[in-house]
Each structure stands twice: as structure tokens, then as C-alpha cells.
């Protein structure tokens, strides 16, 4: 659905994106995570054709980014969303329905569906200038999905929303996913990404440092808490040398395992060395920990 090949954008003194290579398949919900200024919005703008790449290319459905035919099948919600505030929501969506060549007999239904999906039904006759920021963001989302695109690019779609609004957007994303829509979601709200995305990418200072299915990131490392008595000190020393961030506090042992399969191995080692185990807890590292680890500790960039 979406491929980028060494996509780069350089400004006079800075590189916003460098050699970004991505491949997003049809139906995936891809979340791009990165701190502010990492190059997330620039990447999306290059994909939609608003920013010209310095080198490399982006292909949507095999066609170049910015291609007019591709835009009929693409929806985009910008981070800095603003609309003509002298229109009402219905007029704005009607304008875009015509731009996207939605047949006249289907226009009304398409607008009603989009408004209902984003929770603006009944508010469509209100002037946009009277809308709150959250309502404007919902309207932006309605505009992005109005023509039922195959690919939707959402740049910080919940930045102006309250928790209920965020939940609504998650529901919209789920419904789009059920329709088979591919979604590219830019966000730094980790919980939101964790709940909605099937795939993740991490960007730092314009470099894509890791990407893949979300399950790979979540199961890669486990945090184990063991209530243990008579722990062998040689084991403790070895784990320290292996860099497992081991910690022992009042019979509570905490350490990291590389993956889930390592958990029973470690437990067997404790028992084999004479340790008595009363309780074991193992949990995947949260996305926040993965994010901080990748962004703060990645030495490659």
C-alpha cells in the first residue's frame, strides 16, 4: 500500500528526514512514534505530496506521492488543522465531496456517515468559527474519511481531544480497520498507539530506528518479579554481568528477560541453584518503556 525508499528531506542547515525506508501493507494500522521535532510530520507531508523530498521516493499503491489519482484514494488529517471558518461543517464537507468527485446522489449520505462517525451529527449547521478545537479536529477527521479512502494519514489526530474524544477516535480507527482501510498514525500518545496500531515505527532525529509488528516490540523483553528465598549469589552476579538490570530487595528479585521463552529458563536456574520460589510475575514491557529505551538509548543516531 505504502512504500518509501530512502526518503529524505534536507533543509538548509538540518535534515528533517534521512533515508526513511518503510513498507506498510494493506489493512495495517501503522503508528509512527517519535519525540517532538523527530520528523514525523515532515514524513507524512512527503507521503501526501505537500513537501518535496530532497531524495528518495514515496509510493502509494505503486504511484508516486502527490499523484492526483492517488489522492482520490487517500485521506489526510494535518496536525495543524484549520478550516474555512466562514463555512459551516456541512458546507465544508460538501465542498470536499465535490472535490473528491463523490456522485451528487451519494453526497448527502457520505457527509451524514462521516459526521456520525466522528460524533458531529446534529452540529453540522454550526459555523466552524464557533467550533471548539476538539470539534474542529473531529471535522478534520470527517474530511479525511469522507470519500472512504483506502489509505488514511492521521497526524496527531487526538492532540486537541479530551479522553472521551480520544476514545471516539480510537473507535473510528477500529471501524476503518474493519473496512480494510490502511492507516498511518503519527502520534506521541503512546497509550493511544498501543491500543490501536498493529505495526509500529520509531523515528528519532529524522532516522527510522526500528519498525515492525507491535507484538514484536511488546514481547521482545519481559520484566520478571520473583519472590525468592535462598537465592544463589553467583547467579545474581552473572545476571549483573549480562546486564539484565537485576535488582534484589527484601526477597523480591526483579530482572529482565530477553523474551518470554527465557522466563522458565531463569526460574529453572533459580530452583536448580537451591532457591525457593513463592511467587513469579512476568509482564511485557510497556510501550512507554520500549519508546524511552529506543529513543534515549539508541546509539546509532
Amino acid at each position: 500500500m505504502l512504500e518509501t525508499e530512502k526518503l529524505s528531506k534536507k533543509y538548509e542547515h538540518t535534515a528533517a528526514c534521512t533515508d526513511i525506508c518503510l513498507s506498510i501493507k494493506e489493512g495495517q494500522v501503522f503508528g509512527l512514534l517519535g519525540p517532538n521535532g523527530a520528523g514525523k510530520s515532515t514524513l507524512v507531508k512527503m507521503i501526501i505530496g505537500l513537501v518535496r523530498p530532497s531524495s528518495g521516493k514515496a509510493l502509494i499503491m505503486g504511484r508516486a506521492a502527490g499523484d492526483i489519482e492517488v489522492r482520490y484514494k487517500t485521506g489526510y488529517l494535518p496536525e495543524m488543522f484549520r478550516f474555512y471558518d466562514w463555512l459551516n461543517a456541512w458546507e465544508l464537507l460538501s465542498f470536499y465531496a465535490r472535490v473528491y468527485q463523490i456522485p451528487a446522489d451519494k453526497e448527502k449520505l457520505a457527509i451524514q456517515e462521516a459526521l456520525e462517525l466522528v460524533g458531529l451529527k446534529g452540529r453540522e449547521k454550526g459555523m466552524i468559527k464557533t467550533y471548539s478545537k476538539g470539534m474542529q479536529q473531529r471535522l478534520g477527521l470527517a474530511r479525511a474519511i469522507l470519500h472512504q479512502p483506502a489509505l488514511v494519514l492521521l497526524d496527531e489526530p487526538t492532540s486537541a481531544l479530551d479522553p472521551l474524544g480520544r476514545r471516539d477516535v480510537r473507535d473510528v480507527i477500529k471501524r476503518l480497520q474493519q473496512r480494510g482501510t490502511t492507516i498511518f498514525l503519527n502520534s506521541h500518545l503512546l497509550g493511544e498507539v498501543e491500543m490501536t496500531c498493529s505495526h509500529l515505527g520509531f523515528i528519532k532525529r529524522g532516522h527510522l530506528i526500528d519498525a515492525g509488528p507491535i507484538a514484536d516490540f511488546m514481547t521482545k523483553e519481559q520484566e520478571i518479579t520473583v519472590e525468592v528465598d535462598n537465592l544463589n549469589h553467583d547467579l545474581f552476579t552473572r545476571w549483573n554481568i549480562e546486564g539484565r538490570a537485576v535488582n534484589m530487595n527484601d526477597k523480591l528479585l526483579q530482572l529482565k528477560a530477553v523474551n518470554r521463552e527465557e522466563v522458565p529458563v531463569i526460574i529453572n536456574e533459580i530452583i536448580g541453584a537451591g532457591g525457593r520460589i513463592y511467587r513469579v510475575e512476568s509482564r511485557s514491557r510497556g510501550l512507554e518503556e520500549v519508546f524511552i529505551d529506543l529513543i534515549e538509548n539508541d546509539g546509532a543516531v
Partner: protein
Amino acid sequence: MKHVIKLTLKEVVNKRIIHLGIILTLIYLLIYGTGLYYTVKDLGSQGEQFFLLQQIGYQLLILGWYVSTFMVGSMAVITGAGSISQEIENGTILGLASSPLKRSTIILGKFIAYGVVTSLYSSILLTAVMGLNLYFCRLVFDPWGAAAGILIFMLFPLTLLVVTMLFSSLFSTMTAGISAFMVFVVTIIGGFVEQIGALMGNTALVNIGIISSLLMPADAVYRLAVAQASGTMAQSSIVNFGPFGIASTPSTLMLVYTIVYIGVLLSAAVYYFQKKDL
């Protein structure tokens, strides 16, 4: 294209500055008409006074048209200055430019809509000024000449609009507006210099005026429009020997140049907007 034109027309209707412009125009016409009324009242319009009234009436007509150029020019600069840059500054362009509309369609659609509005405004304003003179001073116009003059004058706001839109695709709204207005002022001064040069028989001054008209042919368009609309009246009036007059009338080739000028600058605006990162 038609969607952008319709949207832009709707925007113009909703702009407060346009409403204010219309109110100020009505006030201007009211003051101008009052001036004509008292001129006629004080001079009288019978016998020898009629010839004098015609001369003064023609002077006031030229003055009315000249003031109208400022109003039309301001309208063109105000509507064009934010046409691209303001949409970039407030982010509304992101929705438009990410849709299936080509960037050239966005520029051309806006130009057509703003062009229709400003041209219509200029023709109504000029007709109103002529109508007031016809009513109060009983100036006699050749209807075809007057119509041709008004048609030519419709190019006046288009030259300013295209310059402003080019600047708007390159600079911020403030810079675009100020720069366009400065170019407008330069061409006005160039026009003054040309007329004075013609009066004094100074070729160098005339050439300066021609060069300024090549930079922006708005003043040349104005003088061509005046020459067409006033017809035989202009030949017998002393007002032609002044900065507002047509002592030096531009060649009709200037009309061709103006149309080419608008085309080239519009293409440049499209080119720069297409290259712009949004």
C-alpha cells in the same frame, strides 16, 4: 476549477474588509456627487458658463477616475495579498493542497474569482463616476468609447492582482501586500513622470514612465482607458496637460503587453506555488 472559484467567491462575500470597502466606496461616491452638485450650483449651467462647466466637469471626471484607481488598486491588493500566503500561514491550504486539486487549479481558480470581483467592482465604480458626471455636469460620452474604456480599465485590477498573487506565493501576507502596493506606487510615480515629460518634451522622463509601465502596466492601462472613454472631450481639455491626464497616451500595443504580462506572472505564481513546501 469551478469548485475553487465558487469557494473563493463565497470567501469574498464573507470577508469583512470587502463589506467595509463597499461602504467606503458608497461614501466616496456620495462625497463625489455632492462635490459635483455644488460645482454645478455655484457655476450655473447656462450660456458661457456651460463651456466652463464642461471643462471643470471633465477635470472632476478625470480626478474621480484617478481616485477610483486607488480604490480599485487597494481592493486588488487586499484580496490578493493573502490569497496563498494567508492560507499557508493559517494552515487551511493543507486540506486544499492534499486533495485531488492541482496546485495550478488552486491558483487559477482564485485568480479568476478575485479577478471577476475586482473587475466587476472597477467597472461599477467607473460607471458610477461617469454617471454622476453625466447627471450633474451633462458631460457627453460616446457610449462605445466609454464602454471600451471601462473594458480596458478592467485590466487594471488584474495587473495588480497578478503581481500581488505572485508575491503571495513567494512571501508572507504582510510582505506580499506591502511589496505589491510599493510596486503600484512606483508605477503611479512613473506615470506622473511620463506625463510631465510629455508636457516638457523631455524624452528621458517619458522613457522613465515607459520603463515603469513595463515593470507594471497598471498606469498605462488607466491612461489608455481614459483616452478611450473620454474620446473627443480629452482633446479640448486643459486637464490633459497634467499628471492625471493623457498628454502621453500609451500605445495600444501596451494592451497586448499587459495581457502577456498577466499570463507570464500568473504562470510564475503557479510555478513557485508548485515548488513550495507546505
